[in-house]
């Protein structure tokens, strides 16, 4: 009985222990089969791949395996490697399509949700790169008028063992080191799959402006906890580019460097002293195949090499692009009858009013607007500006302290109680309107917006300062002339829409700090017209470029009103002289274009480069004696037309080429 008395509770305990053990074993067994957490990819990875693009740099002109169209090929043919020496590109990281093939390995870090431990953000870091976050929390991609960067904006999702990453907002770059170029209108999709200690990365580059089908490449890394991704700092200097002209844009004219592009096939690679090693010539590669192209990617292309079929007659199972570049470009400048707001930096915001950008400074001193948008958008712009002014300058916020917890407490209570019992201050007024040109989409809202504002005026000789109705409207004096005497006998706008303050020097400074910073208006002579300005918010470090810069079209150069392509280039160079990139050739000084997405120095440089290249090509054709029609037929802007050109509408590619041609004939 005694033993039973002991046995009873012990038996019960044993059964409980057994049940717990069984449950634990069950959980372990099930866990082997039904894994719920994603594959662990965090850690140090070493580039480990035996393919040409990884093991060495492709020679200039090697486009094998690239589904280039004619535009992509021309763009690459005419881009020398020395473009890396230009000031604005010296510190570029590897372009996103090439990054996984750059040397130095990769660190993958993971931020986890502290409760569920699900990955919230992955961070990819390379030797020559910026931190690249991949957001896993389901957030949307930014609007199309947000800036592009070298690494773009990435979101990810796990599909089985594979992490799928979707990246948008990428700058123009290159597919491989050595020349093959991309536009800034491509989308990138990556698939990362871990197999044992190998990480396979498949990258899809969809750039319909330069490719006839997406460019898909894959590479591998090996897990290596001892690998260390060193940080390569940028020590670029102007000297790399010759040091004589900081605005020099290296490029080849079409057909100028044909021999250079094929030297890797015919002569071999460079060896010491600039001589060539004929033994290294890759002379088994057919010249025509080295030019790339959709059909060269498929096995049946080999039949063209033995002459059994011509390339033209060859059919291949081509793929389509999933990207509409036309829509992507249009989305940067949405003509949807709405006002979209993008915070920029410091005091400055960008408002997109039916496709036209307005730059606005908000602060205690009030509001300064650079341009006012189309006339038909005035009411919506005014509403947006008023609401922003209220929320930015006098935000309504919950009281954050009480009694003695409040900083600056005095007496029995604190002034913070007033945030509860008072209503918010009215929106500060619009003090200044600055017109960067007389174009109707920039000055069309002058009357309504200036009238809604107010400014101050000193009585002089000791008289009191008085408030006057209406904001000051500031512009170059030629803008006043253009607005007050419109071409074609059109009626002049009402006086309230005209500039009240004009300048005629190289620049004009607002008489005092505005919202805590200098605001300087610079003149860009003979640019899109003879009255162009750009505006620098010096502490916020934002430049409003007006019509000098657009990310959606060629510059609208009005020869009849004093414009010239040389003037636009000079204006862009002047902006680049003021602007400084924050790091790795991106960010820092932000530039608001007249139309299109918010930009930085590299974007402006890319636009400037495009204009220089087209100008030089047209100049070359003029020197060869071609007429305007012959120049147009030669398509000197062919590789840029998909990006900036237009076959119809108010500003066509033909009109732009004519403006360049006439600019050069007049030699301004």
């Amino acid at each position, binding site marked *: 009985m005694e033993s039973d008395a002991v046995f009873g509770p012990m038996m019960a305990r044993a*059964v409980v222990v057994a049940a717990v053990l069984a449950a634990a074993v069950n959980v372990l067994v*099930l866990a082997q089969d039904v*894994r719920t957490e994603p594959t662990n990819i965090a850690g140090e990875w070493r580039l480990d791949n035996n*393919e040409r693009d*990884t093991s060495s740099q492709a020679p200039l002109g090697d486009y094998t395996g690239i589904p280039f169209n004619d535009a992509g090929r021309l763009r690459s043919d005419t881009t020398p490697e020395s473009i890396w020496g230009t000031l604005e590109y010296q510190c570029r990281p590897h372009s996103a399509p090439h990054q996984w093939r750059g040397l130095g390995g990769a660190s993958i870090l993971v931020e986890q949700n502290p409760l569920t431990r699900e990955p919230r953000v992955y961070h990819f870091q390379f030797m020559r790169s910026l931190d690249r976050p991949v957001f896993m929390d389901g957030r949307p991609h930014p609007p199309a008028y947000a800036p592009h960067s070298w690494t773009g904006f990435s979101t990810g999702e796990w599909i089985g*063992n594979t992490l799928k990453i979707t990246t948008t907002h990428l700058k123009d770059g290159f597919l491989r080191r050595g020349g093959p170029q991309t536009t800034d209108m491509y989308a990138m999709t990556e698939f990362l799959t871990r197999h044992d200690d190998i990480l*396979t990365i498949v990258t899809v580059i969809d750039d319909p402006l330069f490719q006839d089908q997406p460019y898909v490449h894959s590479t591998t890394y090996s897990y290596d906890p001892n690998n260390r991704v060193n940080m390569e700092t940028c020590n670029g200097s102007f000297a790399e580019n010759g040091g004589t002209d900081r605005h020099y844009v290296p490029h080849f004219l079409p057909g100028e460097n044909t021999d250079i592009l094929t030297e890797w096939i015919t002569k071999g690679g460079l060896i010491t002293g600039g001589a060539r090693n004929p033994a290294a010539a890759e002379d088994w590669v057919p010249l025509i195949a080295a030019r790339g192209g959709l059909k*060269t990617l498929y096995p049946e292309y*080999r039949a063209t090499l033995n002459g059994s079929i011509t390339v033209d007659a060859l059919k291949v199972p081509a793929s389509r692009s999933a990207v509409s570049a036309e829509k992507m470009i249009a989305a940067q400048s949405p003509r949807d009858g709405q006002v979209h707001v993008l915070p920029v930096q410091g005091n400055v915001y960008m408002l997109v009013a039916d496709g036209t950008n307005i730059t606005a400074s908000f602060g205690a001193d009030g509001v300064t607007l650079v341009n006012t948008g189309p006339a038909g958008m005035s009411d919506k712009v005014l509403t947006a500006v008023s609401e922003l002014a209220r929320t930015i300058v006098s935000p309504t916020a919950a009281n954050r302290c009480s009694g003695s917890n409040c900083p600056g407490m005095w007496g029995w209570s604190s002034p913070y109680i007033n945030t509860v019992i008072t209503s918010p201050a009215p929106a500060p007024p619009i003090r200044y309107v600055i017109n960067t040109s007389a174009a109707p989409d920039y000055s069309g809202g002058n009357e309504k917006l200036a009238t809604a504002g107010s400014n101050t005026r000193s009585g002089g000789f000791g008289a009191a300062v008085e408030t006057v109705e209406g904001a000051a409207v500031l512009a170059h004096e030629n803008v006043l002339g253009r607005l007050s005497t419109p071409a074609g006998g059109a009626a002049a706008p009402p006086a309230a829409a005209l500039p009240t303050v004009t300048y005629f020097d190289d620049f004009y400074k607002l008489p005092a700090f505005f919202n805590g910073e200098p605001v300087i208006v610079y003149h860009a002579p003979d640019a899109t017209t003879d009255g162009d300005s750009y505006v620098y918010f010096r502490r916020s470090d934002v430049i409003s470029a007006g019509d000098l810069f657009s990310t959606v079209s060629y510059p609208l150069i009005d020869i009849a009103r004093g414009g010239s392509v040389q003037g636009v280039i000079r204006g862009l160079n002047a902006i680049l002289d003021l602007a400084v990139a924050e790091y790795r050739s991106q960010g820092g000084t932000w530039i608001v274009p007249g139309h299109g997405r918010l930009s930085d120095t590299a974007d402006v440089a890319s636009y400037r480069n495009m204009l220089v290249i087209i100008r030089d090509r047209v100049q070359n054709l003029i020197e060869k004696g071609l007429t305007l029609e012959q120049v147009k037929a030669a398509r000197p802007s062919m590789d840029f037309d998909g990006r900036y050109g237009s076959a119809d509408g108010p500003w066509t590619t033909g009109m732009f080429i004519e403006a360049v041609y006439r600019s050069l004939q007049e030699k301004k």
Partner: protein
Amino acid sequence: MRTLVITAAVSVLAATAGLHAQQAGRGAPPPAAREAAALDLTGNWVSVVIEDWKWRMVTPKKGVYEALPLNPVGRKIADTWDPARDEAAGEQCRSYGAANIMRVPGRLRISWQDANTLKIDTDAGTQSRLFHFAAAPPPGQPSWQGHSLARWEYGPGRGRGQARTGNLKVVTTNLRPGYLRKNGAPYSAGTTVTEYYDLNTLPNGDQWMTVTTKVEDPQYLVRHYLTTSDFKKLPDASGWNPTPCSAR
């Protein structure tokens, strides 16, 4: 006390055994590889030659071993490459063996030979590969395609009612000596080829298969040789063009 321990142990074993039985379908045999597939690779595929075009679509000249981790012995053998000799010896399929066949441009036809054997036919060189998931026959004589054992690698979330997703891993041995590149870079009979097959859907809707291939050959390589080969799924067999092996 001893009785108690035994009782507890028996309980644990009984519970665990019950679970295993449940997992196996209450005593039923495990599902065949075809039913348990982590991804569906069957269908027609075409190589899309974006990488190493100049070494794959055309035959490089003798001595071009760039990117190949050949050791001095391997390099010495490669330097004696003679396609005419291979043809005379009936060895023109040397570059079509399992260590390189996925790099050869062409079309693939993937199908189930039986419930546990996946078959890959190639039009280039008219080769056939068999991936055995279970009950593999014993390896016979070494061959170009060797003896391949396969298994699915499942991803997370393979819970009740969820589609199975994952990858395929294949390990191939028992190979006849061949070439890693058509111009005679050798691999030996002691080579092990490990492959991982991934399937992704591109934004344009293309079904894309990427094969990661690791070749380990202690005889001719200083380290493993790692590449990826890409294929696009085709709606039908158009373009299927069986051609014999070529040594050139």
